[in-house]
């Protein structure tokens, strides 16, 4: 089976997208909180500054002798520096003339009467916030504009803002972590129906091609529909090809059987050596073709079943006995004796039909290549992890061929003339053993003969 071409992962993509979104949102939240906090802090400071300036300007009086007098109310400046260790400054101007306070203090000139103007500036090495209010007053001889500016350093504000910033940072990180966690959960939940579908499809046996019946979400409906229709087509074509193979075998084998039987009768009745030889050739050719057809079918069946192995707990010894008894009548025809020794007391797990087929093919090979009146020994043994069935005969062995080449498809040894066989037997046996996670080994026995061993992993 070829592995699908995998590119990316829905789950990973979802997780990354959602996490990136969460990170973006967290940054926005962080800056939003910070700027709102700054604005609120700024406006409350501005209100205090403005209140202070207004309380000062409210205390301005024109004496009876026409002199301007301003009583700085105590609270007007104490409210600015008492709570924190802020420093407060002020400056009072009449028109363009500086009256009192800090002359060098930067201050805006309100353009509109009775309004408050704010500005930020640097004074004496500190960031300050300045609020200025003005009022028109009438002196005895003229109208003048009195401007009161009050300023406060920003140390406290910066401190508060730093606190808020770290709070916002914690909040942002917390927000990010929670949403990232949610993203993982969401991504997992989103692909859950996909995984369920996968499980329901992969749990099926090799011949279960019914449509998917379990409920699926709307988005997966097209996928499941096309999957169902694919399986239906596969089912149709599979059953067609299975029927076809069975039908073809039936149609071919019956006429072959007629020819074979008629030829047998003719052989019995023919006396001349030439005729006998010809008819024997016919019979041999029929046997060869029907054997080849059988092994091709077996091989196809093995390939088909090995793709998705049935796993039953099986007693290898029972299977070996079955296979031996099945082949015994054929062996007896040539006075070949079959013996079994050793034993296996633990089970293996696998497909009974395939394992019987493999054993049958190995035994069939041994009988075919054995000389008459010889002995075939089937030895069972086991070690900690595997059980083995070794079939040894007293035939000619595997000849000069490198034994490892023998199990290749259609390959036959160099000493097999006149023996009916298609060469697929060992290939089938090896494929079955390999599908079960075992190995097949072949060797020549020193005293003459071949030994084929099948090793099967034991059930844990």
């Amino acid at each position: 089976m070829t592995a699908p071409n995998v590119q990316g992962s829905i789950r990973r993509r979802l997780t990354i997208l959602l996490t990136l979104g969460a990170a973006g949102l967290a940054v926005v939240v962080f800056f939003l909180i910070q700027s709102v906090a700054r604005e609120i802090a700024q406006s409350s400071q501005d209100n205090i500054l403005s209140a202070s300036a207004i309380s000062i300007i409210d205390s301005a009086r024109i004496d009876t002798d026409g002199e301007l007098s301003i009583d700085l109310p105590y609270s007007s400046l104490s409210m600015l520096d008492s709570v924190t260790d802020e420093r407060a400054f002020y400056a009072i101007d009449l028109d363009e003339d500086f009256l009192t306070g800090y002359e060098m203090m930067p201050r805006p000139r309100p353009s509109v009467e009775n309004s408050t103007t704010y500005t930020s500036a640097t004074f004496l090495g500190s960031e300050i916030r300045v609020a200025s209010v003005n009022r028109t007053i009438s002196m005895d001889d003229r109208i003048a504009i009195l401007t009161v500016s009050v300023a406060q350093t920003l140390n406290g504000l910066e401190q508060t803002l730093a606190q808020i910033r770290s709070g916002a940072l914690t909040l942002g990180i917390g927000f990010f972590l929670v949403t990232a966690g949610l993203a993982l959960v969401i991504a997992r939940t989103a692909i859950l129906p996909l995984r369920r579908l996968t499980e329901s499809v992969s749990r099926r046996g090799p011949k279960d091609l019914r449509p998917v019946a379990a409920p699926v979400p709307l988005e997966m409906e097209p996928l499941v529909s096309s999957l169902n229709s694919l399986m239906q087509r596969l089912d149709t074509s599979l059953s067609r090809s299975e029927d076809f193979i069975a039908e073809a075998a039936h149609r071919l084998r019956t006429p072959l059987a007629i020819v074979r039987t008629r030829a047998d009768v003719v052989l019995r009745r023919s006396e001349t050596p030439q005729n006998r030889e010809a008819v024997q050739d016919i019979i041999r050719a029929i046997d060869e073709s029907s054997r080849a057809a059988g092994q091709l079918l077996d091989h196809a069946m093995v390939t088909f079943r090995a793709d998705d192995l049935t796993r039953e707990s099986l007693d290898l010894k029972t299977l070996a006995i079955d296979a031996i008894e099945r082949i015994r009548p054929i062996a007896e025809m040539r006075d070949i004796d079959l013996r079994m020794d050793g034993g296996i007391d633990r089970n293996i797990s696998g497909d009974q039909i395939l394992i019987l087929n493999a054993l049958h093919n190995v035994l069939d090979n041994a009988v075919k290549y054995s000389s008459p009146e010889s002995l075939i020994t089937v030895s069972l043994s086991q070690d900690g992890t595997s059980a083995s069935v070794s079939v040894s005969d007293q035939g000619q062995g595997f000849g000069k061929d490198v034994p490892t080449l023998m199990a290749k498809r259609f390959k036959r040894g160099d000493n097999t003339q006149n023996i009916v066989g298609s060469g697929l037997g060992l290939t089938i046996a090896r494929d079955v053993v390999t599908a079960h996670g075992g190995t097949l080994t072949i060797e020549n026995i020193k005293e003459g003969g071949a030994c084929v061993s099948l090793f099967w992993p034991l059930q844990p």
Partner: protein
Amino acid sequence: MRFLLIEDNTNLAQAVVERLSLDGHVVDHAVNLSDGHAFCATTDYDMILLDIMLPDGDGRAFLKHHRASQSKTPVIAITARSEVSDRVSILDLGADDYMVKPIDFAELEARCRAVLRRNGGGAQNLIQHGNCRFDPLAGTLYIDDTSIPLRARELRLFELLINAPNQIFSKSQLVDRLFSYDADVSENAIEVYIGRLRKHLEGAKIVIRTVRGLGYKLELL
């Protein structure tokens, strides 16, 4: 032996009947399952050869019915399919053995022998001549109550000869009966087996004679 052959293809059935008759067997032929049941009800057979695909039903149905009716006649299923799964289910349903078409008659004979031996129905086939007692199914030959070990081929050769005393068998006839065709066997191989049988039969009131130019025959003394 008396066979019942249940096979819908009459061409094949005729050939099989003719072929089995050559070996001295009696064969009745049923073309479908209901005929098969009818034959079974009226005659005792030694062996039933059952085709699995039949026009009026699956041969497996016959097997079920056959087993349910307590019949002891063994059944060898003949199938045109060769998938192992098919074979396993045939055996599960009560066939004693199965063969895949085309039938190798030497193999059929061997399988019949094995099935009959397993079912233990051999007592009535005992052949006795003078001081010889022969049970072809069990494969035992006694001379003066001494058991003589015979190999499968020697056994079949002896069985052929003793079933038709005084009949002359040519070498080629014997080769046909004794060897399957997957091995090239020269007719001289028969001489080896005749020689062995003669050795086994020393002291018996039976002798195998060579008829020059024609073959061999067994004579009772």
